[in-house]
């Protein structure tokens, strides 16, 4: 597959390039990873002349909170505004080391003839609720082509931290009466999301009470570090839907209020570091003199590089610090392990 060509097509908002691009980003063969790096370069801020226009929305929440139903309603609302939408559904039941089974794809309803929608299930990363490196790369690539890119994960407590590593806007979905979320918020286990959605507003009093409790808890936590306010909204996806338009508007407002370039830059640097650690482990970090030094090194790079290019910078530093490294690694950066795709558990298992 020609990565540069696929990247160029995504940049020109040719949505039909997306499935093949995702296949490539997931691949672990050295040749494919080479092509994947080329693809990502074509959709980097440098190639785009700025940040990708797509709005990356992370949606997370406990099982049974009504995410699929909510996403169906959101999808419908976005499509009626003629926005194109890609959804990456992260399967919580599987890890990269084994097979995965995504049983819920069909729960998000859409018209199969609608070319403006793409839904892709992806396996989780190594940690529970974690994102695989390929998912982060996919979100960044798709944001060049689609108006909205949703990353859906399941869980509470860590999941929203994971999606915060890649999303512009983090949405946490809870159902009425879910005390755990309240406890997580108060105890600080859960980072405060940008938007909190209470589903099943048709349940009436219970939904209202939950919304009230969450708002109170947020107020007691005081203002967030970034000074932004967390919006709390109640929605019902049952017909007639309630609150969906308000939610769409709130998401749009959050995105408009963002310092997008700043957030995306942080995301790319964090992603590069995560991918680097996933690939080379703590040993890799030590080779670049620790996390702080790695962060400083990333901060010194041009701001319009894609996260894979940033990771390559870390790898070059690692190779330079390791005199025993094969000489060709230092002289020929393209031969270094290409981080464009997911970590290869099979290779590492075989190596052990």
């Amino acid at each position, binding site marked *: 597959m020609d990565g540069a060509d696929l990247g160029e097509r995504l940049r020109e908002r040719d949505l039909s390039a997306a499935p093949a691009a995702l296949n490539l980003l997931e691949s672990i063969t050295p040749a494919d990873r080479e092509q994947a790096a080329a693809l990502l370069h074509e959709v980097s801020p440098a190639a785009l002349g700025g940040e990708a226009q797509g709005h990356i929305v992370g949606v997370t929440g406990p099982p049974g909170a009504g995410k699929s139903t909510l996403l169906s309603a959101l999808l419908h609302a976005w499509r009626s505004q003629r926005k194109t939408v890609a959804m990456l559904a992260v399967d919580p039941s599987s890890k990269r080391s084994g097979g995965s*089974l995504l049983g819920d794809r069909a729960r998000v309803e859409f018209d199969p003839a609608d070319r403006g929608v793409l839904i892709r299930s992806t396996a989780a990363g190594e940690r529970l609720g974690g994102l695989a490196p390929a998912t982060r790369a996919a979100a960044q690539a798709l944001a060049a082509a689609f108006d909205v890119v949703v990353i859906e994960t399941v869980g509470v407590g860590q999941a929203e931290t994971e999606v915060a590593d890649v999303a512009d806007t983090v949405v946490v979905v809870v159902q009425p009466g879910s005390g755990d979320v309240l406890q997580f918020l108060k105890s600080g286990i859960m980072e405060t999301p940008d938007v909190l959605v209470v589903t099943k507003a048709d349940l009436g009093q219970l939904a209202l009470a939950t919304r009230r409790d969450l708002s109170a808890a947020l107020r007691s936590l005081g203002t967030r570090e970034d000074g932004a306010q967390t919006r709390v909204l109640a929605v019902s996806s049952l017909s007639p839907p309630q609150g969906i338009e308000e939610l769409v508007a709130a998401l749009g407002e959050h995105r408009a209020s963002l310092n997008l370039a700043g957030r995306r830059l942080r995301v790319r640097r964090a992603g590069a570091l995560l991918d680097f650690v996933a690939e080379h482990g703590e040993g890799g970090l030590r080779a670049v003199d620790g996390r702080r030094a790695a962060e400083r090194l990333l901060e010194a790079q041009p701001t319009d590089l894609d996260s894979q290019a940033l990771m390559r910078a870390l790898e070059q530093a690692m190779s330079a610090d390791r005199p025993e490294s094969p000489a060709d690694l230092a002289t020929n950066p393209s031969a270094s392990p290409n981080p464009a795709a997911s970590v290869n558990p099979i290779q590492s298992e075989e190596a052990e």
Partner: protein
Amino acid sequence: MSDQHSPHLPERDRPWMMRTYAGHSTAKASNELYRGNLAKGQTGLSVAFDLPTQTGYDPDDELSRGEVGKVGVPVVHRGDMAALMDGIPLGEMNTSMTINATAAWLLALYIVAAEDQGVEQGHLQGTTQNDIIKEFLARGTYAFPPAPSMRLIADMIAYTVEHVPKWNPINICSYHLQEAGATPVQEIAYAMSNAIAVLDATRDRLGGPAPGSSDRVQALMGEVFGRISFFVNAGVRFIEEHAKLRAMGILWEELGRERYGLEDERRLRFRYGVQVNSLGLTEAQPENNVQRIVLEALAVTLGRDARARAIQLPAWNEALGLPRPWDQQWSLRIQQVLAYETDLLEYPDIFEGSKVMEGLVAELLEGARAEMAVVAEHGGAVDAVPYMKAALVDSHRKRIQRIESGEQVVVGQNRFTETEVSPLTADAEGGILVVDPAVEAEQIASLKRWRAERDQQAVEAALTELARVAASEESHENLMLPTIAAARAGATTGEWAKTLREVFGIYRAPTGVGEASAAPADEELSALREQVASLTGRLGRRPKILVGKPGLDGHSNGAEQIAVRARDAGMDVVYEGIRLTPAQIAASALQEGVHVIGLSILSGSHRELIPAVIGALRDAEVDVPVVLGGIIPEQDVAQLKQAGVAAVYTPKDFDITRIVHDIVEIVGERNGVPAPA
């Protein structure tokens, strides 16, 4: 009390009601079949509806393609029901309808057909299956989300108790749970939990907006309890199966007394009808199914204290395709030999005082009570659907593994497989019924005529009223009234269901596969895992399979087991569940970047649906192999392969690990990276 010491009954018992689950092609053809069956000595009717009728779609709906008239009769409007029951006196007949999501509608059509015959609804006798929880768990022909589905059921019960008092408004089905892999304990526990959910919902509904009318509710609940019957299964382990029925009788009475405060013995009696097991019927040496069916019939008749009220037996060739009238006659004759030739009906309960039977019953009761407690902890049967579904998928997986390993013997399939050529399957169609594909077009044409000739304004007004009542749950107006009015006005099955879908929303039941536990890795599975790992290296990413069911067939057990095993083997599996259009399958295959597609069809619609899926894939420019599993007659295989199907698996391919192994090889070859020799 003629002679206390005589082992005989003073008078031979009356036999149970004998039925045959039947219907296909058109109302007219099915009417002829019913009349023929009644002439042969059948004593009741059991109507099999086609899948569009069961799920609430008209024959011209995209989802109905290939399914019209296949597994049952299409009944689209009052004209069809009248034709189906033509010449059959509804005031005397006892009719069982296997209908669930759309039960209220089909009962309404039946009531209107009776009106046409001059029979008042108060005289109607029969049963509507009407058990939605098992549809979510096992059978898949649901139409609406759980809450409004339960409301429909409760309304129907409330209506029939008052206006159609001899009707059994619901048959709590444990039948399909066993078909989905339930153990006897699960079958008992989930059926009883299901009954509790229905009874509680009905009690709430009867309570109405004004509380304080508890005496009236209590009196009505007595009648409701007395009208609830069960529809059970019986497998070939017929001693244990008989014990299961005795255990259910004990639990049912206990439930009536303790939870609903009933005292009237008559109403506390556990009444059940039965269709014996289809899951255990084999495609290999299918004649062996006859003796399986006989033994299973014994399970539900042997002991007088737990004998079935009504029996229908499957045909010997169900794993091959649709049975012909002759095949069904054979099954009816089994019942007649049992009832009229043997001495079965001459004795009181032959297990009374049997320590073995008592011990078995006690064991099952203990297990069932514990499992019922778990369901209650999950918030009752409705909320526990995901839990129960996952438990069933798990049980089914274990059952298959026992058969694969040979621990559970299936004669002719995993042991004693040497066989002579069977003369039973020697004819051109392979010993099954093939529905004329022209039926679908005829039904669509007839539907168009119906729509053109009816009073359109009256239909629209009736549907508007139906929507209004559906949307005003608080008012406690009974949905049966506008439903009967719509039936009378000439509305269609699809229009009735669409009106309610617009108010109630659409729903997809949990698949249970995500939660299913991993199979213990035996030697074969370990070898398969290595094979998948090796292919992953050659492909560059994990082999990814899309598993789904096109059309309206909801029998998802096979698809679920393939999905779970493929995951256990290390593949990425996208499981799409049931009721997919060819376009949906193609879109998913494209977006998900799968390497192979596995489809499952048991309804006989593969001749239409498979070419449609392959066409949709071509349109979407998806070039991946398609494999097919299900009840696929041998003579269709060559044609399917010519249409582009890479492999076909039927019930005789019971080793799922081997099927997945095969699929992995197909993926390797198609991608130009076959396994090194």
